[in-house]
């Protein structure tokens, strides 16, 4: 029997109240690893890709990986997989915290949520006891209050995931918050839970998850931890400054999108970066389960209008999206806006990029002054905070549209080209004009513009494990495909992507996975599994109606040269990279996997 897995999945039908336990399929564990891969296989088999994301027929899978609950470094990751409410594409949001390993200790690898409850409910899992409980008292409250409420009603030490007001109000950019501050953020996965009248899960487990070979597991884990200790990134700078250390790194290269990507450099961007966060607001670091890195930031605003507010963050993505992307330099306002996103359960990247889009629409006169609740110019910290509030509460005409995400907002006002998104998902904090590989990755990522599906920044900027020139587009198809397949393996293992800065190659992940599961897959076979997972997700999207036309970027990033800074004059040459990428993937000119490719991967159309 395959080990590392808890052994069973829990299936909860909210329409009928039926609860089932199902054994883990060993063949799938070998072909799709677990986590993202295994969960996506279930979504692809069980959900009609053409269905409305918010229909009861859509399902949500909360999936852990086989390394979860072991001592493998940063192995507490969980994936939330569904058909995304914002994108209509397959969605899988990766999140940290402690719930995943706890779920495995309760005896389950995955929870499948299907149907729709008549009234708001949440799920209470205590080992073998499963209860669907009334959630009306907690429905629509702040995520932190929901978490505390669920703990009071269940067990003070239960691990909790929940949606806040944004999910309840079916904002298309709603996330699921784990441990109150960790977000399964992207693609509107919280929205789908909201549409099912499902508030969240509380879980407490007392069992032990057994590895196939405890001695070998210990050794492989020790080796991986040693690699992370040796890396100056994971031992020193990431823990000390958090992910926002990237602000200066990217800005100094002229790849930091400013004011809805109208520029890609700001001389004063550093005031929103990791060094300033460490100096001005940091209280302490916060690690997820089994993590030796601890990039999480516990913070408190110490001066100004928002003095005394506390929470976690901001991180690199949110200090950018809610910061320079909106022209805002005020770190206190950015931090408070980040806290609000966490409380409402809004995806911080999508929230910031949507606000930036609204600011440009407003400044260009496309949002009529009479519709705007207040002046919405770039640069105002208080404006930013007020915009997050009307977005979270869906207040007024503009607030209601902000909650729909940037694409629907910009389309409503007749200018979808001003939405900095791909497949309707807002782009993250790397300008593809200054780092060409990440542009190809945004365009071809199965969940829309996402950096962590194929983090080419590792090679294009961080030089981990080697350097590739960021401004050259030749060779980026190979790099993008490699990183996408590799990432699919890491995401499916249950380990955090950040471990890659120390572990660097597949070898370390392979050693841990083999020792934990007992499955004899080689490193090459694992990379092939990554490719299989990527193609599987692609097939879902094609069946959902997405085409080659959706593998693109906003026209601004393709045609408008960066006006200033170190990458002045650059555009993203996507048209030069995409055909090469399709060819490498074994897809035809329309971006459809060929019969031979599917056969090689063991997939069917």
């Amino acid at each position, binding site marked *: 029997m395959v080990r590392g897995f808890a052994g069973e999945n829990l299936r909860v039908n909210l329409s009928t109240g039926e609860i089932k336990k199902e054994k883990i399929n060993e063949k799938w564990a070998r072909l799709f690893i677990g986590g993202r891969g295994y969960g996506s296989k279930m979504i692809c088999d069980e959900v009609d890709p053409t269905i409305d994301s918010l229909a009861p027929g859509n399902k949500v899978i909360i999936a852990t990986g086989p390394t979860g609950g072991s001592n493998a470094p940063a192995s507490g990751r969980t994936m939330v997989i569904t058909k995304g409410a914002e994108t209509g594409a397959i969605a899988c949001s990766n999140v940290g915290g402690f719930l995943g390993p706890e779920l495995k200790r309760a005896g389950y690898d995955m929870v499948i949520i299907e149907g729709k409850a008549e009234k708001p409910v949440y799920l209470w899992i205590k080992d073998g006891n499963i209860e669907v409980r009334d959630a009306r008292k907690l429905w629509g409250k702040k995520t932190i209050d929901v978490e505390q409420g669920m703990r009071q009603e269940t067990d003070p030490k239960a691990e909790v995931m929940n949606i806040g007001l944004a999910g309840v109000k079916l904002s298309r950019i709603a996330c699921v918050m784990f441990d109150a501050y960790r977000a399964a953020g992207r693609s509107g996965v919280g929205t789908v839970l909201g549409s099912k009248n499902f508030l969240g899960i509380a879980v407490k487990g007392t069992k032990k998850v057994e590895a196939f070979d405890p001695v070998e597991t210990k050794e492989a884990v020790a080796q991986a931890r040693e690699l992370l200790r040796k890396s100056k990134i994971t031992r020193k*700078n990431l823990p000390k400054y*958090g992910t*926002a250390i990237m602000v200066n790194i990217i800005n100094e290269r002229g790849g930091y999108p400013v004011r809805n990507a109208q520029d890609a450099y700001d001389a004063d961007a550093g005031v929103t970066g990791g060094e300033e966060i460490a100096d001005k607001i940091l209280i302490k670091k916060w690690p997820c389960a089994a993590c030796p890195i601890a990039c999480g930031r516990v913070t408190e605003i110490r001066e100004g209008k928002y003095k005394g507010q506390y929470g976690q963050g901001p991180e690199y993505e949110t200090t950018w999206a809610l910061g320079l992307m909106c022209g805002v330099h005020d770190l206190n306002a950015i931090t408070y806006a980040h806290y609000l996103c966490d409380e409402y359960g809004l995806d911080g990247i999508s929230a910031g990029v949507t606000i930036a889009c609204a600011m440009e629409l407003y400044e260009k006169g496309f949002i009529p002054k009479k519709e705007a609740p207040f002046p919405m110019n770039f640069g105002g910290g208080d404006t930013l905070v007020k915009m997050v509030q009307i977005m979270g509460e869906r207040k007024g005409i503009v607030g209601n549209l902000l909650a729909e995400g940037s694409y629907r907002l910009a389309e409503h006002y007749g200018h979808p080209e001003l939405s900095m998104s791909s497949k309707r998902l807002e782009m993250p904090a790397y300008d593809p004009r200054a780092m060409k590989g990440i542009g190809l990755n945004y365009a071809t990522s199965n969940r829309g513009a996402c950096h962590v599906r194929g983090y080419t920044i590792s090679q294009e900027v961080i030089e981990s494990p080697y350097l590739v020139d960021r401004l050259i587009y*030749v060779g980026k198809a190979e790099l993008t495909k490699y990183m996408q397949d590799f990432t699919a393996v890491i995401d499916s293992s249950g380990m955090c992507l950040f471990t890659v800065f120390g572990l660097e190659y597949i070898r370390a992940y392979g050693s841990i996975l083999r020792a934990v599961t007992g499955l004899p897959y080689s490193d090459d076979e694992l990379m092939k599994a990554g490719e299989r997972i990527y193609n599987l997700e692609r097939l879902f999207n094609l069946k959902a109606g997405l085409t080659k036309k959706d593998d693109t970027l906003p026209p601004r990033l393709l045609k408008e040269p960066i006006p200033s800074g170190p*990458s002045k004059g650059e555009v993203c040459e996507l048209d030069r990279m995409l055909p090469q990428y399709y060819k490498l993937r074994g897809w035809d000119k329309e971006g459809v996997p060929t019969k031979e490719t599917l056969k090689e991967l063991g997939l069917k159309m």
Partner: protein
Amino acid sequence: MKVKVRFFATFRELFGAEKEVELKSGSTIRDLLNLLCDSRRRRREIFDRSGRLQPYVKILKNGRSIQSLEETRIELEGRHIQFSGGIHTELEDGDVVAIFPPVGGG
């Protein structure tokens, strides 16, 4: 000539955040680093014992990594791409040099 030097992350504690440095014309990145490393601690952080740049030190000249700027010049699809020479990269008046320890995330 004058060049602006910016330090980030842990290097800030050692060198400060930003400096303007006066150099002789024709100076290279190495000359600049020699000038900046005026104590044993600073030197040890930037150079190894045999005087080579520590492999983890990341240096940008006007936003381009000097490590990627090896001494080659190629023409790619009609476009000239110049790689100007690692640590021997020459500096010009008004250049901005950014110096980072290894960092990642985000």
